[in-house]
């Protein structure tokens, strides 16, 4: 509980670093994204789209080794889950994918 309160307070008083080029999300924001290697290769805030449609429109097909899923921010932390369509599960994204997401979204 205390951790949660501190996290929220932290996000309220979060300082903006002018050199921080990451995309800032608000708590509760959600988006669809794809990560390949160390890059976010596509993303959209249009969550009306299915993951399949998102991939078709942005990438044609999902590149070999690329990840696709849903990203959401809570308590100042950006979290992500796998696409059910592509992985038949909605487990948290693998850590290397999450690391790339954290390098691009805050």
């Amino acid at each position: 509980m205390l951790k949660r309160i501190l996290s929220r307070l932290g996000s309220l008083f979060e300082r903006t670093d002018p050199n921080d080029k990451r995309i800032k999300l608000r708590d509760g924001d959600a988006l669809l994204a794809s990560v390949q290697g160390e890059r976010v290769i596509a993303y959209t805030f249009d969550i009306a789209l299915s993951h399949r449609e998102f991939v078709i429109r942005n990438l044609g097909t999902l590149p070999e080794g690329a990840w696709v899923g849903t990203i959401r921010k809570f308590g100042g932390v950006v979290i992500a889950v796998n696409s059910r369509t592509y992985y038949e599960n909605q487990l948290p994204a693998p850590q290397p994918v999450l690391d790339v997401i954290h390098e691009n979204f805050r």
Partner: protein
Amino acid sequence: MDDRRKTQLRRSLERELEAHASETQCDPRGRALWLCVQLDNYVERWLAFCAMPGIPMVSLLNDDLFAMIGCGAVAFEDTIRLLPDDHELPARWARFSAVLADVQATKDRVRAGELRGALAELQTHLAGEL
């Protein structure tokens, strides 16, 4: 979640529905089935985050993903008004709507899982009638 974001999401869904209907030349039942499949996507995405420990229901009920379920529900309700001859559909839809309203009112995480079953029944009914 602000009203502008909700409007964006609703308009996007309407655009997608119109594009699908135009491409497939589907009737209102086909539109309802397509919306049902989209709703299933939205519900599953939201439930994935519901399953994560540490995210309170009050946050989950005020996020983009839950708002998307609401947009899908409104669009679906509008569409089934065009299907007055299907006497079973309103009752099946009412079950889903009741669970959705109850989850919002009680913030019951376990009850949220029932959205999945209610939607599956609806989808089976619509697909069976096509």
